[in-house]
């Protein structure tokens, strides 16, 4: 069952419809409600390897529905510590709970200052209106 539209205020957002939840020098990444709604029910998550280096604004994974495939953009740079195997096994978890059980990867940040360039909730909502 798809989740209702929501954008938590404890997250930072990337204009490509990705989010980051900061936890010390680590962060958890995912895609926003808007992104999963545009894609439709996900059928595949092409995850990075654990240990992979990801760079801010670059693609680090792919998500697929039956009608579309989308690069997943890293909101911040760092090293992948963990991939959410619940999403690998059941990609629709992202549709059901994009900010909770549907997180994608946990990353150790290499440049925590990058956070300053991300959008806060208000700025992301404005971005959605503008787009």
């Amino acid at each position, binding site marked *: 069952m798809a989740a209702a539209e929501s954008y938590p205020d404890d997250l930072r957002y990337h204009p490509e419809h990705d989010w980051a939840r900061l936890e010390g020098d680590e962060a958890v990444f995912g895609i926003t409600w808007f992104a999963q709604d545009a894609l*439709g*029910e996900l059928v595949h998550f092409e995850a990075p390897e654990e240990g992979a280096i990801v760079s801010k604004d670059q693609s680090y994974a792919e998500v697929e*529905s*039956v009608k579309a495939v989308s690069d997943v953009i890293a909101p911040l740079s760092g090293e992948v510590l963990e991939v959410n195997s619940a999403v690998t096994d059941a990609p*629709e978890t992202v549709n059901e709970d994009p900010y909770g059980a549907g997180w994608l990867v946990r990353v150790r940040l290499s440049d925590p200052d990058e956070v300053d360039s991300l959008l806060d909730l208000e700025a992301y909502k404005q971005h959605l209106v503008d787009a």
Partner: protein
Amino acid sequence: MKLIYEKSRPGRRAGRLPDHGLPVPDVPEELRRSKAPRLPEVAEPDIVRHFTELSTRNYGIDTGFYPLGSCTMKHNPRVNERLAALPGFRDLHPHQEEEGAQGALRLCWELQEVLAEISGLDAVSLQPAAGSQGELTGLMLMRAYFGERGEDEQRRKIVIPDTAHGTNPASVTMAGYELTPVKTDPRGNIDIEDLEGKVDEHTAGLMLTNPSTLGLFDENIEEIARTFRRAGALMYYDGANLNAVCGISRPGDMGFDIVHINLHKTFSQPHGGGGPGGGPIAVAKRLEPFLPVPAIVRRNEGYGFDYDRPQTIGKVRGFAGPFGVFVRSYAFILAYGPQLREMSEVAVLNANYLLARLRGAYELPFDRLCMHEFVLSARPFKRERGTTALDVAKRLMDYGFHPPTVYFPLVVPEALMIEPTETETKETLDAFADAMLAIAEEAAEEPDVLKGAPHGLPVGRLDEVKAAKRVVVRYGFEEHPDLSGQPAAAVVQAPKGV
């Protein structure tokens, strides 16, 4: 209905082989088949009935109107089937010596000549197996041409408009090039301003479908050609929509250097449920040395193959190409002769007639006369009552028609891309227009009728999400899963056609 494997019974069979009474030599044990493949074990009547029943669950041009945009679903003349089955063609071995294949080689050579005339270019290779392979071959020719000039390293970019078929960008990647997308302007032409900054000394070429997938002829084609010429780049013509302009405007005269021709579209090779096709390419003189081998040539002593082409890119498929396709398409061309022009004129007339009848009921994103096809949008229906292009497509099935291409081109939301072709009667066009108008009314008044469509077909709308997640792509015999108990997902709106 059952799969043919589910009709199989051990020990039943159809075909028998002659007994030559010769001993069968041993196969070394490590190479011997350990477990027989589970092919169907069925009698001949079972096979006939099985495939006859399958055919009744399928819709072809022979069944009815099939306005699948950009696919040119025109009538397939039956004489062409008979000609391709003449034993002198059908049973001719491709390694037969040239002296034993003069008729076939002459046919190929003559087809090359007429395709050069139709495209307005100098030399033709029949080898590519389909349009997309023609594209890839054309891009390989560009690389060879620039390689010869020492510019291959420098010229890495291919410009493609956002209305292009997906094959164009896919071919670019396969040829080792990089993609430079260019936008479409409000009239449906290439956005000249966007283009200006994107063509330079790093550009290898342009790939353009003209008329475009919007069914519109680019009014600025001469200026576009000048832009690429100035930059020293080449121009590739995707012939998917050649049915609009045969004998009226030739790609070579528009300034293109390389063209592929879809024999299964413009020249009526039956589409066969997905193939075969044929994708010959025609090129300007300066690209001829790089064409695939063998070239088919006429010599004093007759027709033959020429392998002595030191600058050739090589070979893109086996032998000289899909010969049976050549027989059918050449017969089609000879039936028309110079009246191919009338063929295209009527294709354009039919499309404009349908457009005129439908324009009030559907959104028309680019309000111009069209060429052989046009694109409507169902966006207002979606906004007002939640019905979509997919719903319109499915409802058309209830009226007895094959739907148009939907959700393509990507630049038009809720797109319905309609190509009637030249072989339909006015009565058929009117019946289709009446159905589309009735559906537009239903979309406003009884949207659930559309959402429940189609009715009375072997299956209703199928669950594509389930297919992508469970991934059952072959029969599993005793272990075959039963998917009927799995929950259904929503039906998906994705490109269908082209």
